[in-house]
């Protein structure tokens, strides 16, 4: 097996160490992400997921443990750390607050500009990122502050995609958008994933979103990774997830209720389609 693109070993982070406010946000997390994987990190507020993902591009230094990118410790040197930030792109929550340039074009070009690329290379990347996020080129000369909320968010995400990160981390990229906007952003991310072959790590609250998009789910609770597996595997533990204060997809909820009522609905059901198929199959069996 090849070297995982990102790996953490015994990652621990303690806030305000040595003071009465000492809190352990992340404790002894061993995690790895393969090249080209689309995975989602879920967990309720305060589960340590935000702290955890900020370690992955070196914005926070671990109290103990290591973060390895392509097998190498990322905090070896300052120069290395800066390069890592270009390879591991991070889209924060409400990223539209980071926009600052006069025009959309310049704002998307800020990241690649910091990478010291040639002008033509930057231009190519800006156009590519705009295409990924569905921004038309006539918006380039507009001020980002004139745009709508959804468009601002796309500009912000394009600003990260333009760095062509090998790992793209997104912290709740759809928070505060309407359903159409959410769907669009998710489609943009999928497009980037499919055509660049990059690893995607998405933090989300919405289980529906996660169930539909991610290949692998990592569940965090109390600073630990408590579950790690395919959506089908994770949603099998519907009850534990609910106890952790997490939602499960509506189809999985219905399946759980039906099982409680004594029906033999498949345990791995988590999309509406699977549920429907499973029910139809059961109906057929009854008819036979």
């Amino acid at each position, binding site marked *: 097996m090849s070297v995982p693109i990102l790996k953490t070993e015994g990652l621990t982070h303690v806030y305000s160490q040595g003071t009465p406010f000492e809190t352990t946000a992340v404790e002894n997390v061993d995690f790895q992400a393969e090249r080209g994987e689309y995975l989602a990190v879920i967990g309720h507020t305060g589960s340590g997921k935000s702290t955890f993902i900020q370690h992955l591009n070196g914005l926070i230094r671990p109290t103990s443990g290591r973060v390895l990118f392509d097998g190498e410790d990322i905090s070896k040197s300052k120069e290395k750390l800066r390069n890592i930030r270009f390879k591991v792109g991070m889209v924060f929550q409400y990223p539209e607050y*980071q926009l600052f340039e006069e025009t959309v074009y310049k704002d998307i070009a800020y990241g690649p500009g*910091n990478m010291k690329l040639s002008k033509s290379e930057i231009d190519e990347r800006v156009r590519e990122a705009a295409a990924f996020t569905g921004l038309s080129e006539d918006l380039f000369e507009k001020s980002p502050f004139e745009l709508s909320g959804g468009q601002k968010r796309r500009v912000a995400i394009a600003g990260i995609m333009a760095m062509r990160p090998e790992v793209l981390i997104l912290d709740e990229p759809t928070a505060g958008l309407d359903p159409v906007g959410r769907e669009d952003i998710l489609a943009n991310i999928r497009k980037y994933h499919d055509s660049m072959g990059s690893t995607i790590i998405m933090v989300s609250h919405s289980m529906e979103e996660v169930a539909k998009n991610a290949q692998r789910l990592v569940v965090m609770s109390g600073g630990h990774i408590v579950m790690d597996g395919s959506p089908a595997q994770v949603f099998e533990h519907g009850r534990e997830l609910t106890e952790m204060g997490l939602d499960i997809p509506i189809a999985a909820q219905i399946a759980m209720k039906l099982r409680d009522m004594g029906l033999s609905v498949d345990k791995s059901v988590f999309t509406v389609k699977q549920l429907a198929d499973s029910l139809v199959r059961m109906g057929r069996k009854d008819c036979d």
Partner: protein
Amino acid sequence: MAVLFIAVSTVSVKTILSGLKPLIIIIVLTGLLNMFYTSGTVLVEFWIIKITREGIINAAYMVSRIIMLITATFMLTYTTSPLSLTDGLERLLSFLKRFKVPIHELSMMMSIALRFIPTLIEETGKIMNAQNARGADFDTGGLVKKAKAMIPLLVPLFISAFKRADELAVAMESRCYHGGEGRTRMRVLRMRAADWVVIALSIMLCVASWLLRGVTL
């Protein structure tokens, strides 16, 4: 006096001492400079160092002055919340209303400003992280380069601050806020015996130090 204040308040001596810690260098330096560079009757002479009687007295004065100054401000900020501080200020300055000075508005502005300092700090951290993730470099380079590097930080910060101010204004207006005229308070400040005692003691201290101004040891 300062000792008395500390004893009366609920602030522990430890917090005050830890507050003094960062200023220790300044305090020690002032003490030493005053000790060595005051002329007068020489007590000890050693190589180029001369310690005079006046020097020691001066040093003691200066050091205790600085310590007193710092503890006094500490006592104020540790015992009094910014809210009651602005309330008190408003009361004290309310006589200026007769001269058409908008005291209520000023103190409201002050409490809002104080309220939003932590919010702004948090916001700065967030934006800094976001720009760092895009390869921003805030620490290296010369003065011009550093100033330029601040643009990606300051522009979003200002924009969000203006937006917040706007939202706050709308929120206040939708709750029918319209200035100080005839407004009642949630917390009413009343003078209590302790307040009078402190004021009396302070006045006494001032008078005493004024009377003693010419006296030297």
